[in-house]
């Protein structure tokens, strides 16, 4: 058996051992099986919840001053959208006069089959065709019974955490699997988020607003702008990098990106890091407060002044570092070393904080040995 396989088996043994510790000493290890659980979602202002009237129950919670509308078989969730989005749209019964909002109608978002409840301080309820329409004008919560894989995911995440830690002992196949999985999932997540939050509203939404509005009603309310064809073409050109023969075309986009970034950064760095920092360093050496000279602030100002000056002398190579220049240069090295030391200390603190976070996950979220 190879060394990597032995370490992998050791990792599995540690995983089982820890879960046993959780069973014996904890308040119950997270249930690893999928199960239903109540989950809360915040309700945005343009949602309407629809269910057959016979299934809807309305209760007023006196203590919290909130209305709870319960639908045991779930709500159909609808959203306000302009009329031209499709034949499924129907007029909104919660709004009194259609001519006041002539283009706004309701459109299906999704059909829920599980138990659900709308909880809010203010609800507008109306009935039509045997259905009850619930609107929450000031927002609220939707509590749905959802089928949750949280337990499975917590166990899997705990295993992956230990798998990554196993590298500290030595390289092994399970570590490799976890590392590759992390990179793959991260890349996929970035791509999906980037597509739905940038490509759809900021590019497709500007070029084909009506089409995009079918997916996302809010985006469709902007005016079409053909100017956005330019970034579309540049984006497509960038993909030419995948072709060995036509890859050179992508350099046009890259040149644009590099040029724009350099231009943007130049201004920012010049104003804030160069001029701003010089201005910040040119403060008074003696600081006075309401009770006379502020000794602490004055000491800081003097140290800052000497530190800046001596560190600059260390990097001044136009004259030999001898005499006063040599002394100042050596002092500058001390200041630099202390700065690097402080930076390193902070780095250690950051890394330990991440380790604390992971340990908290293992002992609180997974094993339930401690309370977070």
């Amino acid at each position, binding site marked *: 058996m190879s060394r990597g396989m032995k370490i992998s088996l050791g990792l599995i043994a540690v995983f089982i051992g820890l879960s046993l510790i959780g069973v014996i000493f904890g308040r119950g290890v997270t249930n690893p099986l999928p199960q239903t659980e109540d989950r*809360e979602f*915040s*309700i*945005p*202002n*343009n949602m309407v919840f629809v269910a057959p009237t016979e299934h809807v129950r309305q209760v007023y919670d006196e*203590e*919290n*001053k909130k209305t709870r509308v319960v639908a045991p078989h779930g709500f159909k969730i609808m959203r306000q959208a302009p009329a031209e989005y499709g034949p499924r749209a129907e007029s909104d019964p919660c709004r009194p006069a259609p001519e006041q909002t002539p283009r706004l109608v309701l459109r299906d978002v999704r059909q829920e089959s599980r138990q659900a409840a709308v909880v809010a*301080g203010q609800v507008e309820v109306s009935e039509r065709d045997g259905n009850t329409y619930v609107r929450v004008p*000031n*927002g609220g919560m939707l509590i749905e019974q959802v089928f949750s894989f949280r337990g499975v995911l917590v166990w899997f995440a705990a295993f992956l955490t230990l798998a990554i830690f196993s590298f*500290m*002992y030595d390289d092994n196949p399970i570590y490799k699997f976890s590392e590759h999985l992390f990179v793959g999932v991260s890349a996929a*997540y970035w791509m999906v*988020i*980037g597509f739905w*939050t*940038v490509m759809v*509203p*900021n590019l497709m*939404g500007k070029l084909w607003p009506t089409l995009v509005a079918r997916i*996302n009603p*809010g*985006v469709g*309310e*902007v005016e079409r702008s053909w100017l956005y064809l330019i970034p579309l073409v540049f984006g497509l050109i960038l993909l030419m990098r995948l072709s060995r023969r036509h890859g050179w075309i992508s350099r046009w986009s890259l040149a644009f990106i590099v040029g724009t970034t350099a231009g*943007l*950064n130049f201004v*920012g*760095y010049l*104003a*804030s*890091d160069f001029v*701003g*920092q010089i*201005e*910040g360093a040119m403060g008074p050496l003696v600081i006075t407060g309401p009770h006379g000279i502020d000794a602490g602030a004055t000491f800081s100002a003097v140290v800052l002044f000497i530190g800046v000056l001596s560190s600059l002398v260390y990097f001044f190579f136009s004259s030999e570092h001898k005499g006063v220049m040599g002394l100042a240069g050596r002092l500058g090295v001390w200041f630099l070393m202390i*700065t690097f030391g*402080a*930076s390193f200390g*902070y*780095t*250690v*603190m*950051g890394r*330990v*904080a*991440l*380790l*604390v*976070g*992971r*340990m*908290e996950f293992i*002992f609180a979220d997974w094993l339930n*040995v*401690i*309370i*977070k």
Partner: protein
Amino acid sequence: MAKGWYERIRDIDRRWIFLLIALAVVLPLLFEMYFPEIPTPMVKQVYDQIENLPAGSRVLIDFSYDPASMPELQPMAIAWVRHCFLKRHRIYAMALWPLGQQLAVETINRAIDFVKKIEPGREIIYGTDFVNLGYKSGQQGVIKVVLTNLETLYSTDINGTHISKIPMMAGVVNLKSFDLIVSVSAGLPGSKEWVQFGSDPAHVPLVSGSTAVQAPLLYPYYPRQLVGVLGGLKGAAEYEQLLFERKLKPLLEKRLAELGHPAGAEDLVAQAGQYLGYSQLGIKRMGPQTIAHLVIIAFIIIGNITYFIDRRRARGRKTR
């Protein structure tokens, strides 16, 4: 030849050090070891900046971090959002990191849960008290665009609602429309870019909460270009302590008394945790942090001693 004790310490396997660090973190967690936090002047300035804004001020919070840096940054993000809600500021959440938008949802929901528990009957309404504008790619380019016109990039919020339909977006044109920018950042783009492209040109005060790794890069901007920096977990713990002492303590005591669980000063945090879901994540995590630092310092001292002993032995061999 068998190794002596000195050689054993000098040539110690790195895995023993890993094990000791793991124990230094796990044992304080299991035995709930905390240490008192004394807020530094910089943290006090950050606190005062939020505290002194009039109720209803517009606070833009940038959640530019991801789950990898959550242990450090989530405690300060929660503390800030709690503070803003308690002061009745309007929160505009955004993210320059893709995963930040989901962390903003989680952070705000946690803070709302808590505020509603200590101020029963308080309505915190999406679109009126807070809005999540979500993530946009483009790094510092996003800041550059929202400096002049926010709607160019943020035409909708995270739910797809056009910003013209969100009540609290009325009157928000660009960065200058905000009273304060709060940057919770784990790297690039983050607080540095907010200074360069946002707060400096817009002349809007900026406070930053950053990972410990990033904090030394931000201190040069203090105090002229940055109101203050919460550096890593330590900064978060100090802010939690300050918020507790100055704002939450009387509120928690009052609410616990109303619920019939009056708490003494000693067990106030524990009682509030049990009945109101109050937590001081940063302070809790500083316990293991402190012990781990002591172990690291011990190893640095041991490493230096062995280095000097080796050097002296080598010199001794040369002279012979």
